[in-house]
């Protein structure tokens, strides 16, 4: 029956949406990454109090006089989401360095949506379960981060900034900040 060859062709065409699977392999995202890391998941369970303490400690160690927080390479960055703020409210990173971000909500479900001009990166931030991300800024600039999961009436006021600085710049700033605050951080001085 000739008409059935068209039906067969339609079946082949429909199933060729599965060609997307070899595309994942081609882009190297077929299998879970080394060490079982999650692309936007941490899965670690913590209490709000524990996380609040970690964030407070991180801010105390890394806060600059202008209130922003400069993260150190290789050390986790803690971001706490609470109706309707992110803590810290400004994070400084250095271009070309790799960072690890850990996020938790202390109340309702929030999200982390980094605006990069014509594109964004989006992940959900939940209570109880940490969202862990690896990130590597390539281009200096100021990036807006908004909450894109409805979290209550003040949802549209919930945002913070990530400032990516030139790598050399970072060193300069570090020295000045260390001088002002009188803190000593062996790891940063060593760079």
């Amino acid at each position, binding site marked *: *029956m*000739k*008409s059935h060859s*068209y*039906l067969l*062709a*339609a*079946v082949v*065409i*429909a199933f*060729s*949406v*599965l*060609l*997307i*699977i070899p*595309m*994942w392999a081609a882009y190297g995202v077929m*299998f*879970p990454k080394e060490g*079982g*890391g*999650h*692309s*936007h*998941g941490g*899965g670690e369970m913590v209490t*709000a109090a524990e996380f609040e303490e970690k964030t407070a400690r991180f801010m105390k160690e890394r806060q600059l006089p202008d209130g922003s927080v400069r993260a150190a390479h290789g050390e986790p960055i803690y971001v706490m989401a609470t109706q309707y703020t992110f803590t810290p409210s400004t994070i400084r990173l250095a271009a070309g360095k790799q960072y690890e971000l850990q996020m938790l909500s202390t*109340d*309702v*479900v929030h*999200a982390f*949506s980094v*605006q990069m001009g*014509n*594109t*964004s*990166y*989006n*992940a959900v931030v939940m*209570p*109880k*379960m*940490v969202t862990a*991300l*690896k*990130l590597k*800024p390539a*281009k200096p600039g100021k990036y*807006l981060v908004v*909450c*894109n*999961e*409805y*979290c*209550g*009436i003040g*949802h*549209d006021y919930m*945002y913070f900034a990530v400032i990516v600085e030139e790598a050399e710049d970072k060193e300069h700033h570090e020295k000045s900040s260390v001088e002002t605050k009188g803190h000593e951080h062996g790891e940063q001085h060593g760079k």
Partner: protein
Amino acid sequence: MVNNMANNRAQRPSLAQQIAASHPADQKLMAAYGIAGLLSLAGAFALAAVLVVIKTPALGLANGELYYRMLTAHSILGFVYWFAFIQAALLIAGAIALRHGGRLWSLKLGWLAFAFTAAGLVVNMVGVFAGADVLYTAFPPLAESFPATPLIYLGYLFVAAGAFLISFDFLATVFTWVERKSSLQAWKTMLGEMHISTFAAVCAVPLIFSIVLTAFFLYIPAFLWSMGRISTDAREFALNFRLTYHVMFHIIHYIPAMAMIAAAYVLVELTTGAGSIYRETVAKGLFLMYPAVVPPTFVYHLMADPSITEGTKIIGSALSLLVWIPSLLHMFIITGMMEAGMRSAGHGLFGWIRHLPWKNPAFASLIMGMTTFGIAGGLTAVLLQEQTASVLHGTFAVPAYIHPMVVGAASLIYMGIIYYAVTICMKRDLWGPRLARIQPYLLSVALLVFAWAGTLAGYAGVPRRTADIGFGGAAPESWQALMNVTMGIGGTLSLLAGALFFAVIGMTMFAGRKPASESGSGLATLALPRTREFVYTPTALIPGIIFVLVVLLFTAGAFGIMGNRPIQFG
């Protein structure tokens, strides 16, 4: 060549005659559901007008409190009640109108189901307007901060009970069609005689039952929790709720998908008179694929959640690709029905397209609904793969595909059915056939503008469900222009098309010419003189090829975007 539908048609009266001949008492229940559905849809459109005003940046009227309340009511009316009512009406139609002389198993049960659904609507609307700004998701722990939240969960329990009762009634009706219950052959005969669309409804019932079961499992504890009767830690509760919710919510999506395709089979028969050139078992078998592939693919709503491991997400992504397949094949069969029918009447390779009944508003609803369905389906590509979901998750790209899907495709195809249902059951001519003629085109074009600009806005990072996208002046400049087009142009045109539909249907009900003329004011079935035997359907393959290329391109595009981000994630 097997031409089941044509053979069946020879034995029984035409679909339109069958619909007209269905029992008035059953018709009354169907009409009650239809009208309640139309009222819910009208409400959803009216609230959408408020959303359009708030979300068009050029108007400068962003207002958080009003926006979230209107959004909650809009989505509950549109996504929950319009579909719950109209799909129940379609279920009844499948039981009585598509089965010559068919009667509903229990009319009383049908009315009880209707009462539950209507009560759900009232309870939910009281809840929303009493201040439950929880959006239709009503996620704990957020829901805790709104005292009216219990009414949202309670309303959902009512609508779930209503859906269960009407589906049960439908299933019981189908069982009465088997003459000897112990004979396998009798079951086979019954399933074989059954109209494709009724069969689709039979396949949807297990999905509806699993939705109802999950809804009880979800909302009974949620209701008790919101009333303070369960002292579980809200945050612990939230994780479980979110997961269970998405299992249910995911399956809910496929009820309109299946009902829309079932309705499309009816529309193609009513508008062009074309029958399938393939065995009906092929189309019926494809409907069986949904209950098999839909439940395990719920993972794709949680692609950006930390609670699901990456391995699960990857398996979920692979399975998700399968949900396109039955719909793509149905689109091929339906297009093929038209193509073979038209070419059998002597029209040429592409010439047949020109001779389709483009001026019949129900046909326009069918063809534009199918086109919009294909385009919106393609737009989901990036969202349902774990590997690329981070590009669009939670952005305006989500409503930008959902609206063409549920309004431009499902609702538009239902509108096509309503054009026939109202004129046939009320024996009136369509009022304002010229207005009706442009309505389907306007609605789908409006939603495609909404989809196009809204998807670009999503790619640019505009968050969904956010009243004011200014972020203290820190938002990218492109956002305002994109949202002005999405809401200001796409949204406004959609409202206009909606108003046009309600004007035509409302006026037909009250002022349509009676008795109806033979031609039905532009709704007459196309007269196709059969001049030759034609069973080839090459043109019907084209939309599928385009679809596959588009999803591959979108996927490659998303990988391209991810590779060029100024901040690399992974």
